[in-house]
Each structure stands twice: as structure tokens, then as C-alpha cells.
């Protein structure tokens, strides 16, 4: 019980402190970290719990971003509309992707998700009338909630923090529920799952659609941080970046996703002013994580905590 209170209180206190103390740039940066964190967490459900290696996750995230941006340009930036269109798009794209890719496994899945994701990218890149093509979409209205306009960095940060909290609770309840256990079962021993009467497709499809909904929710808010959405947010390199964030943060822990996105974006944002070799740093951090902490920083922190606790006891 004490632990549960701490789990709620600590992030809430951190978010409140950040909202009060940080400057506009940092708040927007944190909002981006949180939104990417949500998307990476949804990828963790696929990779960490389902063993489904996807290189097309940015298509769900970015596709939802486009849908939300287009809807907002048409009907205004109401948060419910934006989130609704993003989540719906994420789920529809995930369902389409699922129908195509989930009959395959391993490397086939990797390549099929890549192909599917790149097809979404091609559409975003070439359908100039709707998506703005290579230049992307600008001129989005600010987000609004009833009579309030949520255009300040602080409001965006708080919205992202709230969404991250909700997404985390949703994600956790999913993996803890029977469906989540079944997902782990399909990863560990798919044939046994079939012999127990589980439909592998049904289990994986549900996980993918949920991941699409979460990534879609994050993607829906993403364009409003910078009032811009472009095809790079759909590109497979974005998917690869999400995988990197996931691995650095920790596969299979859900909350590691947020650490991973913070570390990756932190390196990219702060290190690149000092050295052109920041990609080398990302690569080294990534490889060292795989070699030394196969379950990422999250597992490292857990080991550290256990050690401290043992010493304290």
C-alpha cells in the first residue's frame, strides 16, 4: 500500500515541481519526452510482452498525428476531438497492420511492419493536398478544452503528463489482466497457447490495437507541441529511434520507456551542441545497454534499489 502511494505521489510531485519551476523550453521538451514515452511504452507491450518486433510503430504514432492535425485544421483544436481522431486512427492503422503482419513471426514480422510503415510514409509524403507532402502541415489551431486555450508550454506539459499517467495505468492494467498474461504466453510458447485453445491471432491483434490506441493518443498531441506535423514522424527511422529508446530504457517494464525517451532525446538535444559525434554516443549507450543491461536502465535501477534495500535491512 505504501508503495502504491509512493508510485502515485512521486511522479505527481515531480510533474508539479517541473510545471512550477521549469522554463518554457524545458516544459515543451518534457512534454515531447512524455509523448514519445507513451508511444515507446505501447511498443514495449508489443516487443517486451508479446515478443513482436515491430519496425512500423512510427506509422501508428505519426499517422495519428496527421489525423489529429487534419481534424484540428478542419474543426478546431478541441482536445476531445484531437485525442479521439488520433486514437481512432491509431487503432484503425494498427488493425490494418495486424491483419497483414500477424500471420508471420520473427524477421518476417520485422520486414512486414517495415513495409507497412513505409507505405503509410509514402502516402503521407505524396498526398500533398491533404498532408502537405514533404513540407508537412503547418498552421494548426491551438489545443482547447472547453473555454480554455491550451497553447502555453505549461498547459501542454500538464496535458502530456496527465495523458502519460492515464496511458501508464491503462498499459499496466492490460499487461496484468488475463489478456496481458496470454500475450506473454504467446511470446514464451505459442504452440502451447494454441493447444490450450487460445487464438494467437486474437491475442496479438488485441495487443496491437491497444498499442495503436496508446501510440495514437500520444501522436495526437504531438503536433500541438510544435504546431507542426511532417512525414519524418511516420518514417521507419522514427520507428527505429523508438526501439532504441525502448532498449535503453528497459524492455518489459513499461515505465522504462519514459526513461529511454528522456535519455535518447536528452543526448540528441544537449550533446549535439558539444560534439558532432552524438550519434556515436547514442550507438555506444545502446550497445552497452544491450551488452551489460539487457533489460535496460529500468532493470539497472531495480537492481540498485534491491541492493540498497538489502544494505538498509
Amino acid at each position, binding site marked *: 500500500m505504501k508503495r502504491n502511494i509512493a508510485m502515485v505521489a512521486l511522479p505527481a510531485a515531480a510533474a508539479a515541481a517541473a510545471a512550477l519551476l521549469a522554463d518554457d523550453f524545458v516544459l515543451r521538451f518534457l512534454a515531447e519526452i512524455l509523448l514519445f514515452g507513451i508511444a515507446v511504452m505501447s511498443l514495449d507491450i508489443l516487443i517486451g510482452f508479446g515478443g513482436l518486433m515491430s519496425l512500423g510503430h512510427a506509422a501508428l504514432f505519426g499517422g495519428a498525428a496527421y489525423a489529429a492535425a487534419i481534424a484540428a485544421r478542419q474543426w478546431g483544436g478541441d482536445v476531445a476531438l484531437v485525442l479521439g481522431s488520433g486514437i481512432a486512427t491509431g487503432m484503425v492503422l494498427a488493425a490494418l497492420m495486424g491483419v497483414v503482419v500477424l500471420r508471420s513471426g520473427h524477421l518476417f514480422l520485422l520486414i512486414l511492419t517495415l513495409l507497412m510503415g513505409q507505405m503509410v510514409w509514402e502516402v503521407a509524403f505524396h498526398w500533398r493536398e491533404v498532408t502537405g507532402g514533404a513540407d508537412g502541415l503547418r498552421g494548426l489551431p491551438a489545443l482547447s478544452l472547453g473555454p480554455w486555450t491550451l497553447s502555453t508550454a505549461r498547459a501542454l506539459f500538464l496535458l502530456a503528463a496527465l495523458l502519460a499517467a492515464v496511458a501508464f495505468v491503462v498499459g499496466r*492494467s492490460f499487461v*496484468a489482466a*488475463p489478456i496481458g498474461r496470454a500475450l506473454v504466453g504467446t511470446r514464451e*510458447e505459442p504452440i502451447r497457447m*494454441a*493447444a490450450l485453445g*487460445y487464438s494467437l491471432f486474437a*491475442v496479438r491483434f488485441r495487443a496491437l490495437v491497444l498499442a495503436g490506441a496508446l501510440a495514437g493518443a500520444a501522436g495526437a498531441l504531438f503536433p500541438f507541441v510544435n504546431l507542426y506535423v511532417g512525414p519524418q514522424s511516420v518514417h521507419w527511422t522514427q520507428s527505429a529511434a523508438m526501439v532504441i529508446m525502448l532498449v535503453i530504457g528497459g524492455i518489459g517494464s513499461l515505465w522504462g520507456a519514459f526513461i529511454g525517451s528522456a535519455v535518447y532525446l536528452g543526448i540528441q538535444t544537449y550533446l549535439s551542441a558539444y560534439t558532432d559525434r552524438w550519434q556515436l554516443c547514442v550507438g555506444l549507450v545502446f550497445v552497452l545497454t544491450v551488452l551489460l543491461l539487457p533489460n535496460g536502465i529500468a532493470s539497472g535501477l531495480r537492481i540498485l534499489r534491491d541492493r540498497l534495500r538489502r544494505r538498509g535491512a
Partner: protein
Amino acid sequence: MTAILELRGVGKRFGAFSALRDVAFDVGERETVGLIGPNGAGKTTLFNVITGFLRPDEGSIRLAGQSIDGMAPAQRVARGLARTFQTAMVFPGLTARENIAMAVRQHAGDGLRWFGGARAASAAAEIAVRLLGDAGLAHRAETPLRDMSHGERRIVDALMSLALSPRLLLLDEPTAGLTRAESDRLLGILRRNHADTALLLVAHDIDIVFGHCDRVVVMELGRVIGSGTPAEVREDAEVRRAYLGSTGG
């Protein structure tokens, strides 16, 4: 006696190799049938065909009077057909309780539940613990399967299948690699639970087959070459030549 399983003219080829040819026999309700034959006789292939992991090239299969041809494995399980595998197929990373609960939840129709899943999960866990207790493994409930002995894994594997309350349970070499004591314990568990379950059992240990089965089916090179009560099979000349002779003598 009504048949729970009816096989008619089942055939399966891998390229030029005929793994099964015109296989036909029945398993009655609550009956225990032994399936024996030398290596390569097609016993495991037949299991895979019956449970839907392989598509037969010809023939038909009926479960409880209804055709199950073309059904996916999961659909056959839903109709009361369960199986174990030659090597214990369990979830090594999960605890014994979680392994069995996975089966219990699916059987209760809660396998894919999310909302209200907590209640379903705790009910399933309770049943799983009870089953483990019945099998004398209560103290191992929270142990991950990868840390368990071969025999214990076999038992958990069988418990998972039994948790589905199947009408017909296919057991592929359930006692392979077990000590005598472990084998007896496993068979005891099966016997206790199988009042309403028919068993189709592959085993290399002739004593087990002849000691526990109501009827025995003998296969060789993909064909059924004899069947009957253990006593009848023991007397069958062709069976003796093909199988008993080669292993017994």
C-alpha cells in the same frame, strides 16, 4: 458405447513420404486407448492431425459426433480436445500457478479478458493452486517452471491440459524420462481426474500401456496394423512381429 473420437481414412504425406495411410479407429467416451508402434510409425503426426496442428491430405475426423475437419487448434480445444506434447511444453518464465491459471482462464472463457480481469484472474489462480495441491505440488506454486525438475514440469504440463476439463485428452509420451515413482504419480493424477475424460495415450513403456489401457491400437509405417484389448493385441501375430518382437526380443 458412443465414440468421442472417430477417425476415418486419415492420410498425410510429406513430399513422397506417406506419414499416415488410411488410419481409422474410434475412441469411446471415458475410454483409455493406448497407441503404440515403433519410431516413425506416425503416432505424433496422427496427434498433430487430430489436434489441428497439421492438415490431413485425406480422411475425416469427428469429435463427439461432429466433424472437426478444417478447424483451427483453438476451436478443437473449445470442443473438448486437449493434448500434451512429447517434450513438456510449458511457459518456462512463468510460475507453476501462472502456467495452470493460463489454462483455467481460457477454459472459463476469461482468457482474453481485460476489464474485470482481476476477479477472473484471482478465481483462476485459486483453481490452479488447488490443482497443484491435489498433485502434491502446492509448495512449488510460486516457482518459475524453468527452475523445476523434468518430472515436475511434466506434471504441470498434464495439469494444464486437465484444467481444460477435456472430453478427450491426447497424451504424447507422458512418462518419457520420468522415474518409476514420478510415472506412477503422474498416472495417478490422470486417473483421479479422468472420470469424464477419454484418454488417447502414446507411450514406449509397454507395461504402462498394457496395464492402464482399455484398448490398444498398434501402428507401423503410418498404418494401423492391429487393435483390441491388451490381451488380444498381445496375441496378434502381426503385432508381435512388427513391434513386440522387435522391442521385447
